[in-house]
């Protein structure tokens, strides 16, 4: 138990240090862009394929149930609300925790083990600012964008599944999908992924940057980054969903 509390405390201090240092120049814009490319652009194939496949699967399942109640015309609305509210943000977050979190943990741990971080410090460069802060910022910028893309391809997958069993036109599918969706049902759940992204960047960077176990620590940092980032975003999601319900009560109905 004490180990977990230590971990939470240390990540909290690491986050405070990141928040404080992020406000002090120099701002590592080039490194941030590099990391956005690594975290966002390179995650795109994974997000496109997963979102599309999940859109198909969700449509197959929900259609069967909706048909039983004679409500198959609601299928596009169910699909869009499911993706916008929860599936898009959470799945994009978990995919990023798996792909990007592991990458950050392993990369920074490897840099520590091979003295690359020492080499940066020797050059009088703040390694924390150069390596950690850009990764946290990049993850929190890239994840909302990936979430929107996942929502779109999820709806596309849903349409393809629907099209296989009915003659529903694209225009009607889109019209029904967005008919019941308010901005409050789309914007807050999408923006919450910026927090997911920051948490993934923070935990993975903490595990990689602070490791002192040499080569052995690289694998451990990668594994722990995935496990702890995934767990953290699921737990934080519970809190954020309640907060969104509180701030936008209409989304809870």
């Amino acid at each position, binding site marked *: 138990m004490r180990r977990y509390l230590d971990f939470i405390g240390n990540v909290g201090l690491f986050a405070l240090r990141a928040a404080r240092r992020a406000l002090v120049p120099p701002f590592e814009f080039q490194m941030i862009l590099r990391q956005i490319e690594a975290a966002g652009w390179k995650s795109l194939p994974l997000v496109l394929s997963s979102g599309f496949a999940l859109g198909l699967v969700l449509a197959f399942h929900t259609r069967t149930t909706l048909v039983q109640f004679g409500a198959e015309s609601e299928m596009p609305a169910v699909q869009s609300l499911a993706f916008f509210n929860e599936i898009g943000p959470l799945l994009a977050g978990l995919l990023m925790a798996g792909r990007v979190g592991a990458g950050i943990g392993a990369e920074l741990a490897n*840099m520590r083990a091979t003295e690359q971080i020492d080499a940066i410090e020797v050059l009088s460069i703040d390694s924390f600012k150069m390596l950690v802060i850009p990764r946290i910022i990049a993850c929190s910028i890239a994840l909302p964008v990936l979430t929107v893309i996942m929502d779109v391809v999820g709806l596309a997958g849903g349409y393809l599944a629907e099209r296989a069993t009915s003659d529903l036109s694209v225009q009607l599918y889109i019209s029904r999908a967005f008919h019941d969706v308010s901005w409050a049902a789309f914007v807050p759940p999408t923006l919450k992924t910026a927090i997911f992204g920051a948490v993934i960047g923070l935990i993975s960077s903490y595990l990689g940057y602070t490791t002192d176990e040499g080569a052995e620590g690289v694998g451990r940092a990668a594994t722990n980054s995935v496990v702890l980032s995934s767990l953290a975003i699921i737990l934080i999601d519970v809190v954020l969903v309640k907060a969104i319900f509180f701030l936008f009560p209409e989304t809870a109905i």
Partner: protein
Amino acid sequence: MNGAIPPAIAFREVSRSFGGRAVLNNVSFQVAPGEAFCLLGRSGMGKSVTLKLTIGLIQPDAGAICVESDNVVGMDEDGLSKVRSRIGFLFQNAALFDSFSLHDNLAVPLKRLRKQTPDAEIETIVQKNLEDVGLGKEGRKMPAELSGGMRKRAGLARALMLDPSILLVDEPVSGLDRVTASEIDDLLLRVRKRDNTTMLIVTHDTREARRVGDRVGVLDNGNLIAVGGIDELAENPSALVRTLVSEAQ
């Protein structure tokens, strides 16, 4: 003031422990400007820690460490930055940045620390330093594409980018064959002759210590048990020192 030139590096009764194990115990030594001082010893005897203490990457538990009169113990980041700008560091595995090309690895110190340097001048300096270590045509390669010896040479080229007056060198020939090791030693000798660079070299290769070093210190179990020229140390009462030195002959 007597006008005497201060040592380039001075350790005064420096101690450092890790997890209750004393890695350095009251260690004192000095390196004169332009001198090459080799620290010899078995693995895990605190040699690399000595280098990291010198540049302020680690702080000692006790003692003073002076680099050209500046005590780096307890020094703030701004002070350390100024000291570090006068020191080059060749890491054991070169510590090249994996995600940067060789060219960019060398350009980093200038781009970060001498921001006023025009890009064209940076290009010229990078190319010259690469050519100096025989890697003039390899600038576009990534570190993963280089052999062990090439990585060491590239690490040396990066360490020299800011024209340091002091060079810290960590196990420059470990893991290299004898021929490549000899080439690295030749490079170190050339740099020293050309720039009169002070060198603190950590090694367990006694042949290298004999070839490159003016003086040698032997570290064992956290203590500096002998300091002197290689031939002097051959007469040392310690069997370990004599064994180490005899390997160099």
